[in-house]
């Protein structure tokens, strides 16, 4: 084709839908690339705002992963997010839009606190009895808060989005009633501090044996979160129930055709979701706050959980890592600025990750066309 050389070569990009599944490593590489792109974009904005992007990033990294102390703080922030995101992920897997993880989280904290404050168990009870009972109470309270929208959805087809969202406010008001009126400590809007037995053990508690743990606040909640993530992974991908959840989520008609009871599963999955969020509330109250108080519990973990669940593509194990990233951003946020830059970076990462989904469904081809 001698004459084609004289013809002008034209390069063009073409977007085509993917017909084959991309290889298994592809989604993680795309997500990683999206974060890099987000950081570059964030850097541009930082320098436009008159800052030095490299120093800012360095500072953020230092403030969240710089030494064992801040790393521990990052993990403490990530712990409630892991459980809240797991809660969202199981419901979303069945396409149940549980926006009420926040309320279920708060109710979990309330349920766990009631064991101490009612009191169900005396203050001198051993830690090894206190903690399991508080976990069960927290999960039960969260499950009840998940059951309500689940039952309404299953029996009367009430939108779970609205009912679960509204129950968030009910949960806050409910907790406020108790700490204002019943369990108040000297008129302040908080309960008295919990006895030591109701605290989740922290690394710092073992500083005598391991000096390296001095001052580290990472608590047992992290272990609870990781174990919960592994159990949820197993339920979703390796159990009969999980198979039913995945089938209903992908195609409810096919699930009905396969003889699966959708009504029952709607209620059960909302309860499981609520129980996980409730466990998150318990972990936060017993691991960090150590008293019932609204502000640190209703800090939006349930809503962050929605975002984290999506970014992790509902994969329980990926949720652990995304939660740590978000924990770091929350922590660094406090370090650098009360608001602003870290929130902006958080937003850019989110947009980039969501936009990168496009590359999973489409491919861009460079076409050398002859004009």
């Amino acid at each position, binding site marked *: 084709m001698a004459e084609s050389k004289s013809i002008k070569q034209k390069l063009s990009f073409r977007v085509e839908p993917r017909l084959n599944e991309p290889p298994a490593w592809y989604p993680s590489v795309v997500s990683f690339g999206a974060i890099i792109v987000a950081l570059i974009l964030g850097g541009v904005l930082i320098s436009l705002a008159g800052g030095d992007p490299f120093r800012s990033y360095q500072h953020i990294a230092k403030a969240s992963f710089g030494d064992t102390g801040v790393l521990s703080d990052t993990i403490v922030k990530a712990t409630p997010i892991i459980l809240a995101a797991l809660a969202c992920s199981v419901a979303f897997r069945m396409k149940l839009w549980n926006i009420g993880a926040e309320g279920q989280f708060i109710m979990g904290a309330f349920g766990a606190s009631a064991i101490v404050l009612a009191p169900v168990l005396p203050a001198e009870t051993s830690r090894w009895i206190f903690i399991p009972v508080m976990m069960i109470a927290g999960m039960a309270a969260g499950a009840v808060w998940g059951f309500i929208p689940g039952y309404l959805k299953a029996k009367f087809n009430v939108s779970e989005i609205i009912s679960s969202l509204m129950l968030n406010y009910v949960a806050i008001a409910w907790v406020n009633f108790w700490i204002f009126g019943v369990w108040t400590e000297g008129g302040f809007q908080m309960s008295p501090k919990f006895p030591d037995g109701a605290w989740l053990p922290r690394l710092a508690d073992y500083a005598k044996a391991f000096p390296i743990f001095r001052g580290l606040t990472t608590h047992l909640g992290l272990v609870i979160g990781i174990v919960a993530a592994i159990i949820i992974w197993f339920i979703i991908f390796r159990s009969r129930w999980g198979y039913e959840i995945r089938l209903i989520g992908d*195609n409810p008609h096919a699930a009905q055709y396969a003889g699966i009871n959708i009504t029952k599963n709607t209620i059960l999955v909302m309860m499981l979701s609520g129980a996980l969020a409730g466990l998150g509330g318990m972990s936060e109250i017993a691991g960090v706050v150590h008293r019932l108080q609204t502000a640190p519990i209703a800090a939006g973990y349930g809503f962050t959980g929605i975002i984290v669940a999506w970014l992790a593509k509902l994969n329980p194990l990926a949720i652990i890592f995304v939660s740590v990233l978000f924990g770091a951003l929350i922590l660094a946020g406090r370090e650098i600025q009360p608001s602003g830059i870290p929130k902006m970076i958080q937003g850019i990462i989110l947009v980039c990750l969501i936009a990168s989904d496009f590359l999973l469904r489409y491919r861009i081809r460079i076409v050398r066309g002859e004009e």
Partner: protein
Amino acid sequence: MTDPISSTANSSSQVPLIVEMRGIVKRFPGVLANDHVNFELQRGEIHGLLGENGAGKSTLMNVLAGLYHQEAGTILVNGEPKVFSSPRDAIKSGIGMVHQHFMLVPSQTVTENILLGLDEPRFLLRLPEYDLKIAELGERFGLKVDPCAKIWQLSVGEQQRVEILKMLYRGVDVLIMDEPTAVLAPQEIEGLFITLRAMIAQGKSVIFISHKLQEVSAIADRVSVLRRGIVTASGVSSKGVSRQELARLMVGRDVIFALDKKPGKPAGVVLNAIDVHAESDKGLPALRGISLNVRAGEIVGVAGVAGNGQSELSQVIAGMRKCIKGQVLLNGDMVSNRTTLFGIQHGMAYIPEDRTHVGSAPNLSVTDNVIMKNYRKPPISKNGLLDMKAATKLANELKSAYDIIVPNVSTPVRLLSGGNLQRVILAREISGLPTFMVAVQPTRGLDVGAIEGVHRLLLAQREAGAAVLLISEELEELLSLCDRIYVIYEGKIMGEVMVNSEKQDEALIDTIGQMMTGTPLDQIQEEEIAANG
């Protein structure tokens, strides 16, 4: 490669060509969908474009309609080369396409849908004026549809008419119809054909994409055939070529239309429906006293025009729809108004009408889809956990036993072709060793080769002693597979006929045809006696 059959060389130069496509190449990842395809459309003809699923027909026409861009090749419209970068460009050059899936706004009226995307009316929506215009246009082409009706109120056939009107209103000269009959009931198909002929009479040209030989020979003046992206016949007269020959051009080998069916040896009654009444989704009576039975070792057909209660009947049997009166017994156990699970656990297999929305979970893997019915039992399930190794092993066994073409069993089934997906569903249902199977339209939308495969599997079930209820709109399919046929009309059984596999006499087809249009069998027989006596 053999040379494609083509019309005599000089015939095309006599009639002016309205569209000419030369050397079109279109590639998709892993597939060469169009390999240097030439296509010629004469002014004022209906041109049938035949091919199996995945032969590249729709791709070629999407290129012509401006939806895809070809990698090589040129398009000439009235002799002038054109480059289309969007459907809008194609419409400007007078080429419009009606897709299989309609693109209409359900909550808006017919007129609003037709005007959508146009520059007129400029400011004020003077709808009554346009209603009138559209009604006139419809009248001209025999497209009866109320311009003020909302889309959701219309049947699928009427919605298709709106899509055609949309194109006619935009003044296209060439109308591409992609598998237009796939969604239509038989009587609607006749209406569509009348419209297409009216369009030809008024100087328009039509490209009719289909994989149904009968329809193409009934409506098309000339036929082109594609096979795996290559033209195997180009513009041959539909009169001058036999159906067998066209089928061979489509699939590349002779299709056996007669199946090897051994004489049946029916045993006891397996399924017994007694005076079944049920309502449609809209709450209207759909089944009005259906009684039928199926014995072990026979295939019993239900013939009828679409929408006469066939879907509802299968759903009542499968336990997915409420039976308001009467009952369905499976081996003596009542299955109607029980859970779907009850039927599954008592040996019922169900091939639903809608493979993608009911029969499978599109984003789940082949493995997840084949265990849909038996995930509750060992070896797949142990103590509430799934044994994924056992599931994968089963999926791989079924993959090779049923020729499911897929790179591996972890592929999501949405990536499978229609024929392959149907094989996944059949593999799943048959591997459960059912005593009774209800299959609804099991071959709809499949190509000739895949249809044959499905037929063989159904006959194998019959020989294995299962009772099969086959609900189909393809009379030919029923006649070649069934031992007995019931005919359903408006939710009632019009009569039952025996099928003699040796001879398919015209009288039988005639009787079934009469029953399908609402004449009960006893009345037909009375009339025959009266005529003879």
